[in-house]
């Protein structure tokens, strides 16, 4: 297990290295001179040159890259052009709302998806199963923004149970926090529930007539125990990957949802920074998101080993 963990950790290093190159290239090799974009069309060539010097943009790209990389190692992602705050500081300030949103939507997803899948597999020979299949397909096909607007209209405006926008940190009160995040959380979860429940149902149905379930039934074990203990524990292994991908995908989903519900998270920061051509922040946020992505994959790998003894004792 230690071996496995170390291997996974080491495997991350080249990935992060490549990610950093790609992020750097996206920002620096896309057409458009940042200094020109920042100063606007009417700026004089001297002013542009001066700003380039100030930002280090006149140096060769390779040098710029290694300067940037070197700074990352000491936790310095540069300075915002717009607010002159440290990028690291800006991102940290925005983490709370985004992670809160992800945690709430993920909890909602799992609370709904797992019992649904188990129930459907239990009733696998009834009309519930085809109904579920259509339902989950519908769920995954709903555009997030449309559902968001619908819910805002319904539960925010017509019957104003929930606030339509804004965010309260958890430190200012659990209830207010939950109150503000429930609606956006539901929107994000709605899309993922179908996917995860479907995946879990599929892998449970694959296991449901495996030989080991016959052994369990042959012992006289209850069908519900066979499903919840024997089948579920095996089906969870492949489902973990999908859950991991989903969590990572939530990062993308939050960009839209944070904008609609004006939640001051990382997604909104990214959008704002793109509008302001604040490239150090863009770079920092994209790198950070990529890092979280890699981290989630690592957690999934470790979870895999935790759930599957065949990997744990390789």
């Amino acid at each position: 297990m230690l071996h496995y963990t170390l291997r996974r950790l080491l495997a991350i290093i080249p990935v992060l290295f490549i990610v950093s190159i790609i992020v750097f290239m996206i920002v620096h090799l896309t057409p458009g001179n940042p200094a020109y974009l920042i100063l606007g069309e009417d700026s004089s060539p001297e002013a542009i040159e001066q700003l380039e010097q100030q930002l280090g943009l006149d140096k060769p790209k390779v040098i710029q890259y290694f300067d940037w990389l070197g700074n990352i190692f000491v936790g310095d992602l540069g300075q915002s052009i717009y607010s002159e705050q440290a990028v690291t500081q800006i991102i940290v300030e925005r983490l709370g709302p985004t992670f809160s949103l992800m945690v709430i939507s993920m909890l909602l997803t799992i609370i709904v998806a797992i019992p649904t899948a188990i129930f459907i597999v239990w009733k696998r020979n009834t009309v519930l199963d085809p109904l579920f299949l259509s339902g989950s397909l519908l769920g995954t096909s709903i555009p997030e923004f449309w559902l968001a607007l619908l819910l805002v209209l319904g539960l925010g405006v017509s019957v104003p149970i929930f606030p339509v926008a804004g965010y309260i940190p958890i430190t200012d009160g659990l209830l207010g926090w939950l109150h503000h995040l429930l609606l956006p959380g539901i929107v994000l979860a709605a899309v993922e529930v179908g996917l995860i429940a479907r995946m879990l149902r599929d892998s449970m149905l694959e296991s449901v007539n495996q030989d080991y379930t016959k052994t369990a039934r042959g012992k006289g074990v209850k069908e519900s125990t066979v499903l919840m203990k024997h089948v579920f524990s095996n089906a969870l292994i492949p489902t973990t990957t999908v859950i991991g991908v989903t969590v990572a995908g939530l990062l993308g989903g939050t960009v839209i949802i944070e904008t609609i519900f004006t939640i001051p998270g990382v997604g909104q920061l990214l959008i704002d920074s793109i509008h302001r051509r604040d490239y150090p922040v863009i770079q920092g946020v994209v790198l950070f998101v990529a890092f979280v992505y890699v981290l989630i994959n690592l957690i999934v790998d470790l979870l895999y080993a935790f759930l599957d003894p065949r990997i744990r004792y390789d």
Partner: protein
Amino acid sequence: MLEVKNLKAHIDTPDGVVKAVDGVSFIIKPGETVGIVGESGSGKSVLAHSIMQLNPKPPTFYPQGEILFEGRNLLQLQEKELRKIRGNDIAMIFQDPMSSLNPVFKVGEQLMEAILTHHHMPKSKAKQRAIELLKDVGIPDPEKRMNAYPHQFSGGMRQRVLIAIALACNPKILIADEPTTALDVTIQAQILELMKNIQEKYGMAIIIISHDLGVIAQMAEKVLVMYSGRIVEKGNVEDIFFHTSMPYTWSLLRSLPRIDSESRERLLNIEGQPPNLIHPPSGCNFHPRCPFATEQCKLIDPELTKRSSNHFVACLLSEVEFKEAKRLMENVEQEGDLKHV
């Protein structure tokens, strides 16, 4: 103790209804060993699973018959009542030991589950019993092996664990569906030996299922020969092996490799395709492949009839006719062999 009466187990499929078990009757008495033999696809597993009521329903259904265990018809029992019988009174081991244990739970836990499902006792006591069971089935260092996972065992050791699971509640009947088919020859012999030993110690009846007549000859006292979902011959081992009276059984016996005969070793397969179980042949199901078939055989479906006290045969040929036909065929073959040499 167990009486199967005219049992039919059919399976709904998109192509039609598979008549996997189609009118089977037999009796199992306490402590005896009954072998069920037949080509693969003849319905042995579906029959075994019917006794445990483990065939998935749907697609399986039971249009006819009774399975009486100690006077109660298992086909009519509630799931809750069946669960009290499964594992407790009737236990089963399966063909493939590699996939019959749950890969994510410890062997000890899976064994203790078998005990705790039927007996309320503290975990520590169940653990003690589990260790004893592992000892009984010949697993070395049982205390330590309790904490191992199935993938850390070899195929033979896993089958031993599965036997221990089946023994957990001291069942009255142990059904072994091809228990050695997936194993090496040497391991096969060890497992069969183990089954004999545990039968001596625990005294249960055993139903052993195999497509291998060698295994049946070694283990069984009584034999049921199955073909296309039916019993075509049944009797004591001697009846089946020395007074074979049904052309299908005879073909099975001939398909065994013989090392003792003076001519070269032969391995015959029974000619022709196994029967279609959705649209079985008319008359005697075996007639398309039977070397002795007559016109009559296409029309009349022979019933299982008594030849001697325990010996029953489903064939239109009388004993004398069958012997004569067999002799003729063997003569023809010998001439053929001589020509080849």
